[in-house]
């Protein structure tokens, strides 16, 4: 392979521009459309924008309050899980949503993405799960996108291998666009406050138009997707 310095020096020579000029010429955007587009909406308005945009990305968009959350989840499990439910290991989120007791009382017992259990075991569990319930950090109203950084208790394949998927999101964490989500992650990943190797932005179900441009919903990832927004958190 070409040595890095040789490669980069060649580019500098070919372009006629010396290296290491960037510190004196940082990017100063010509406009701030990413920050100002769709700005100024209340959480109530953002919730309605997200709800309105959900059908376009084949999302079953539901809302509930904290008290109704366990029942809403039970309904999803009864309809989709067929006794094979996958849950994340995330005590903090269960506690925040008031779901610790609900989790511990589930019957039949669910499977968990287990920190320390290793690659093969977790992937195998996820692959044999009919349904997964995951926690999302944010919901971006414009595109109806949930964001989920990989954690030890909620791995990458957690979101892709089960057949059906439900994401629990707090209403206060709905933001206007993916830009606001990135404004949140950028400094925190850089500073180490959020430790992750992977950031997933997920917008509805997997889909394809590769055969005669006919839309097929559900290809490699989940066949359907439910967002459950918890309103009074």
């Amino acid at each position: 392979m070409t040595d890095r310095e040789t490669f980069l020096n060649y580019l500098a020579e070919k372009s006629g521009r010396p290296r290491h000029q960037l510190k004196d010429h940082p990017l100063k955007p010509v406009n701030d459309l990413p920050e100002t587009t769709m700005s100024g909406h209340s959480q109530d308005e953002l919730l309605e924008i997200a709800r309105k945009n959900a059908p376009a990305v084949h999302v079953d968009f539901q809302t509930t309050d904290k008290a109704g959350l366990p029942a809403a989840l039970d309904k999803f499990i009864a309809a989709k899980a067929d006794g094979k439910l996958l849950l994340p290991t995330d005590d903090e989120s269960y506690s925040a949503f008031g779901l610790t007791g609900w989790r511990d009382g589930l019957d039949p017992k669910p499977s968990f993405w287990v920190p320390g259990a290793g690659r093969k075991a977790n992937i195998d569990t996820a692959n044999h799960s009919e349904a997964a319930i995951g926690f999302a950090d944010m919901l971006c109203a414009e595109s109806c996108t949930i964001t989920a950084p990989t954690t030890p208790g909620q791995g990458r394949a957690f979101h892709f291998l089960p057949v059906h998927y439900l994401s629990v999101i707090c209403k206060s964490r709905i933001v206007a666009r993916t830009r606001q989500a990135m404004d949140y992650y950028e400094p925190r990943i850089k500073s180490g406050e959020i430790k992750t190797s992977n950031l997933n932005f997920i917008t509805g179900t997997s889909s394809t138009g590769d055969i005669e441009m006919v839309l097929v919903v559900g290809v490699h990832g989940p066949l359907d997707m439910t967002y459950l927004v918890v309103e009074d958190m």
Partner: protein
Amino acid sequence: MSTTQMDDTMFRRTGQKTGTMLQYGDPNFVNRVHQSTADKFAHGAISSAQDAQWVKRETARAELGNWEGWRDLSEQIRQHCVRYLPDYLEEFSDNVEKRGGHVFFAQTDVEARDFITDLVKKKQAHKIVKPKSMVTSEIGLDKALLKIDGVKVTETDLAEFILELDDWDEPSHLVFPALHKNRDQVQKLFAKLGYTGDNDPQHEARFSRKVLRERFLEADMSITGCNFAVADQGMVNIVTNEGNADLSMAIAPTQVVVMGMERIVPTLREAETMDNMLVRSAVGTKLTSYCSFVSPKLPDEADGPEDFYVVIVDNGRSNALGTEFEPILQCIRCASCLNVCPIYRNIGGKGYGSVYPGPIGAVLSPLLQGDYGDFHDLPYACSLCSACTATCPVKIPLHELILKHREVMMNDKHMGDLISDTVMKVVGMGTGHSSLFRTALTFDHVAMNAIAKKGVKDPETGTRVPDTAKNLDENGKHEEWMPFVFGGWTKVRDLPEPPAHSKNFRTWFNKRKKSQIAEAGGEDAFRKTQADILAKNPNAPKAFGTYDNSVSARKVGREQTTPLSDATVPTALGSIEEAGVGDYADRAKGNADNGKKD
């Protein structure tokens, strides 16, 4: 800046050939076009796809609002990254290594391909999964991998999987590679794997899910492309709708990322902006189903790559640096230029004979090779309609670059043949001398009359009309055949016969002007009347040339993006007004704070 734009190449400087695996199919352009256009299904599919994508793309852009402002921002980001490319690549490679990954640099396709095949052997990988990636096609990776004993390669994007089953057929579109395949062909190809269902795309896709799920689960290596590399995080951004890239990256313990060296952005924020532009332009939605930012797995995470390699590929991209072709490195591979191109619509992806078809391919393919050996015809596969330039989300002046290739071939490389050189010289003389030009206009009708034909008689109206020429003179004659290069036009459509001198536009205009002067009572009075009309027309200054914002007025290399002052902020409507706003960093911080947990 080099004056002979294609002289200073990687090959000239280092002796290394680039772009050696780009070309496929019949080397003769005309033969390729005949073969491509003979596929009627593909031809119809491309037309339908272009029409459908037009509606989706323009709707998605309109929903975002202020599209031109977004294009300005995207152009600026991409130009900035290309301008400081060595610095950003250095920062990116440092940060990948901080995350535990490994970065390798390849100046040529052979170098990149050989490194990856050696790595496959060294890691003893046997089952490789590949999400769709143009750059791996560009370096001929699939064919090289298949030559390694005991290695099984699976393309996991549904379209690429279909092409793989068809003996690794070549893609015909950057975003929809199997556009030329119909559901019946897919049914037959899937039958090779035991599919017994009907030709319903839903059933076929479900079958592929089952087959490919097994391939994901047994994979020991994934080889992916890269939509954008995030310099300050050392992360790689990949977007898909099917989720195949995410499954590949999550499950296989080794990941190799192959990236074109220009696919870099400074931070996650710019990656987010570019993803929004890419997806709206490529598939007409706000975002793809999956948009991921990946790096080597952390020790306490279960899945994701333990070994993470990034191969940064030049392969002739640097031939564009420092030349008027440099804007081509702004490209984000959205393929919207293909989706508006009338030539692509007619000759299809395979007519181009390059891994990169369409307007982007016509500009990029000769540049990657550093000469016009294989692709000298491609810059002529263009009507210069400029639809590609108008739709490009990062404002690459594509049609101007195509024209520039023609200029280099003719003026610098002297590649014209004797006939076209002679014809051009005659046309140059004729149009360069007013007396000759006037003479030509006087005799064009007489000269063309000898080969003109009457049209077919319409039984209903009794008039004679040709198939295509509509604006016929009253004699109803048209040209169906013309000699030399002029025949290129009449092969595909009829040409109205030029009117007789006494009836042409210039004669009519002169007569009309004379009568207007006479009516006004002399030339001075006529000029005053005209000036009064112009004075009342609010659009007159623009119409008469003090301001020209047309695409054709933009010249390659002359347009500079100048950052606005910190005190400048766009209004909701996108117009720029001075306002007392703090600096960008403060505003960005304010927005970030808005997204904090409650």
